[in-house]
């Protein structure tokens, strides 16, 4: 009467990237990084993004805008430099190339140049404060460690990566359809997660309270040591946002992918973990008994079969206990619903790693992810530092003025960044700026009386 152990033949894979040339040391080192910053890092694109149209010639442009943006560098020996700012793209390039930071973080736009903040401390009033900041999200796969069995900790593989894909789809759709945001950038964090930058003017001007509200809107999982059931969906129905997430993304993810890739019902321990989420002891006892009795039968689809048992029992209507109403959805949500780091999103002054940085532990570049094709994204094939430099070397001499990144795998990412994100964003910024300017002009005209 022993539940057969399904053999989990999957090896934990440490993603370390393909190494094109065995002579190059794996991943990451300061010399490579120096070269990367010399040849490949897209300063111009980052500058144009961060300027939000203020680097133009229009009279409405705020020349101080870019210089009020905080950046921070983490240097080789974990030395941390905060409240850095730059006045132009060339200063930005110079600063980065000089310091060769292992990590670059982007902070908010402050009311005054952060590098000069102490000069304003005298006036007492809270003069130095953040005034604009993208709405950001950080999703880290280690937050799912209690529901993924293929890897744990810093590792990530193609069996658990779909959790990130699902998170992108759920959050992205909500940001667009529910909140009306248009300019959203998703970026691979370089190792085990994704970041999201919402860059609409409306988003940049959100208060902390509003950011917290959005984060809470997305929050379903309330993990804590004390409760067995971390997802609790009370109410006679699910909110339309949850319904959409379930029917469009999570149900299939769970049933078509996670059940087998994570082998959710393959061992007694794993089964017990799910049974603990059922608030009615008689139901879980019934299922436990049934699964213990199983002695033969294909072990290939043991997960699918047991899931069917469970669904059938809960949805049959035989058991009408409190809290069983949404139990199936609760289980699916527990395993698959996005888990956000709430603190990252709630405060304007939270720093987040810049896109196109290189992750020191993996050597991978933090490249943008296309949410429309996120299911095709493969973290194991993201370009690494060594790979890119290899490509540069073998690419031969390009024309003067060519972008070096164009000759490498990075080209695709930069082009995507520009066409899908940056250009539409800047176009919209220009329009906003012009219309605001014109209406101000109109107002002042109207108020003049002759």
């Amino acid at each position, binding site marked *: 009467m022993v539940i057969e152990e399904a053999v989990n033949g999957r090896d934990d894979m440490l993603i370390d990237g393909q190494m094109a040339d065995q002579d190059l040391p794996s991943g990451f080192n300061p010399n490579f990084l120096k070269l990367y910053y010399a040849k490949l890092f897209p300063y111009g694109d980052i500058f144009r993004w961060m300027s939000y149209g203020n680097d133009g010639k229009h009279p409405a442009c705020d020349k101080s805008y870019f210089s009020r943006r905080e950046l921070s560098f983490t240097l080789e020996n974990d030395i941390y430099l905060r409240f850095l700012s730059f006045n132009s793209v060339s200063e930005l390039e110079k600063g980065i190339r000089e310091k060769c930071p292992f990590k670059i973080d982007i902070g908010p736009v402050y009311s005054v140049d952060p590098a000069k903040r102490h000069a304003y401390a005298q006036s007492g009033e809270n003069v130095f404060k953040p005034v604009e900041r993208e709405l950001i999200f950080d999703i880290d796969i280690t937050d799912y460690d209690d529901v993924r069995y293929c890897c744990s900790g810093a590792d990530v593989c193609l069996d658990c990566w779909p959790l990130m894909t699902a998170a992108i789809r759920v959050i992205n759709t909500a940001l667009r359809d529910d909140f*009306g945001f248009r300019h959203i950038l998703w970026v691979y964090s370089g190792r085990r997660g994704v970041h999201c930058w919402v860059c609409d003017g409306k988003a940049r001007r959100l208060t902390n309270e509003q950011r917290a509200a959005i984060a809470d809107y997305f929050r379903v999982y309330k993990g804590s040591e004390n409760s067995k059931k971390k997802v609790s969906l009370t109410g006679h129905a699910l*909110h339309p946002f949850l319904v959409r997430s379930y029917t469009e993304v999570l149900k299939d993810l769970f049933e078509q992918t996670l059940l087998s890739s994570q082998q959710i019902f393959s061992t007694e321990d794993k089964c017990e973990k799910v049974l603990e989420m059922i608030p009615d002891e008689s139901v879980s006892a019934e299922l436990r008994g049934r699964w213990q009795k199983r002695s033969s039968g294909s072990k290939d689809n043991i997960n699918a079969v047991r899931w069917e048992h469970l669904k059938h029992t809960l949805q049959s209507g035989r058991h009408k206990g409190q809290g069983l109403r949404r139990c199936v959805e609760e289980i699916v949500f527990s395993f698959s619903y996005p888990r956000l780091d709430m603190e990252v999103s709630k405060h304007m002054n939270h720093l987040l790693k810049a896109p196109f940085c290189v992750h020191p532990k993996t050597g991978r570049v933090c490249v943008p992810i296309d949410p429309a094709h996120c299911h095709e994204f493969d973290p194991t094939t993201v370009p690494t530092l060594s790979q890119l430099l290899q490509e540069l070397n073998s690419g031969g001499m390009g024309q003067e003025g060519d972008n070096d990144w164009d000759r490498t795998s990075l080209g695709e990412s930069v082009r995507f960044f520009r066409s899908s994100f940056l250009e539409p964003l800047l176009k919209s910024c220009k329009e906003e700026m012009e219309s605001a300017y014109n209406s101000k002009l109109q107002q002042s005209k109207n108020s003049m009386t002759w």
Partner: protein
Amino acid sequence: MEIVRRPQLKSTAIDRGVPTLPLYRSAPSLEVRLEDFELYAIDRLRVLTGISDGLSRGKRPEEMEKLVAELWKANMRHPQASEVMNKDIISHFVLRLVYCRTEDLRKWFLSMETALFRYRFRLQTAEAQRAVLAEFQLPYKAVTTSEFEVIKDKLTLVARSINQTLPTADAIFYKVPFQEVPELVAGRRVFLSDGYAYVAMNQVVSLVATQFRSLLSKALTLTNRKWMSTIREQEKDRLTPIVEALSMSYVGPDYSVGREFGELSLKDIDNVAKSSFPLCMRHLFDKLREDHHLKHWGRMQLGLFLKGVGLKLDDALAFWKAEFSQKVGAERFDKEYAYSIRHNYGKEGKRVDYTPYSCQKIISLTPSVGDHHGCPYRHFSEENLRAALCKMGVNSGGVEDVMDKVRHKHYQLACTLTFEAIHGCPNDAGINHPNQYFSDSQKILKSKVKCLRISFLLTSVIDWEFPPISTVHSLHP
């Protein structure tokens, strides 16, 4: 009797087309007759007290709505239709003056006026409600019928997910930028689409009430400042006496201002404790007799109560000394405790006459080990409370009713039921203050005991804050 010709008012609010629900944002520049000043305020106070009573009786929102409509109709009408709005506004502003003067008064007034506003808002027509939203400059647009059809299913889902009543065909929803309603977004209590939240009417009511409350709260603080700095002095011959009389002629939430108290003599105190003390004071009193000691909060709660009941300072000192000296000795009593008793009577230190605690205050206190103050309905274990109620003389049926109220955390209602059970008659006003319990009880008992009672005239050498009342009760059969 002199007939004063009513001056013609320039324009009424209704003429100007503002919503029928005033927001009381600025004091009106209307002329008011002095007697209307007082009369209007008293009428409005009846409404507010009625609301207070309804709330403490745990009435549901639908019942409250009905109650408010009735109260308003009964008290706030005026023979001249054009005067109705003026009465509304004037009475509110007069009561602001009356109720701005202490923290407790402000709190009560704020709660009651907000509740009044909330329920009156619910009773308005859709158009009037829209007008109010516009006045508050809330950027809410009502959802059109065609829009509603498209999103009806989603709205139903949301309502079901938060266990609210389902939207009907004529339900009003407001389309609001999501940034305006962060709490609703955070709790997933609204349907969101393209940056807009679809807010149900009852949610709008909450938002509006919150706005109203915060405006009024700020206004009250300002009014208080103005009162203290200029108005009180300026109006000392005209409005001030009326304002102060208003707060005396009505049972506000406290018993601080001198009222028609009987007075208590020491030899009556044990009998009167058994018959007319509410449970909280009875408990403290019994414990004092038992232990010959009470800790600080217990001394405050009981001591101020006894003062409010009419115990003179001399008698109070004698009373507490008689008990405490059995525990700590007469000398120590004189040294350590007498001072604070005199302090309570305003005879020491900054000579503030401290007011006996109201139920609200007592319920908020939390006794710890060795304490006996606070509200027993809140803090006693079920067992102890049942025993205490039996001791008070409540029959077993009554005890069950009381325990039911306690379970639902309606402590004042529990006390009211206790009162009704012991005295065998209803207490419609509900218990809000231990001294009220006492005086209501005494009224009933005295009317039952048909005899002449003469209270003693005071010949105290000590100056009293409030005038001693000598009462001669003679009973008409």
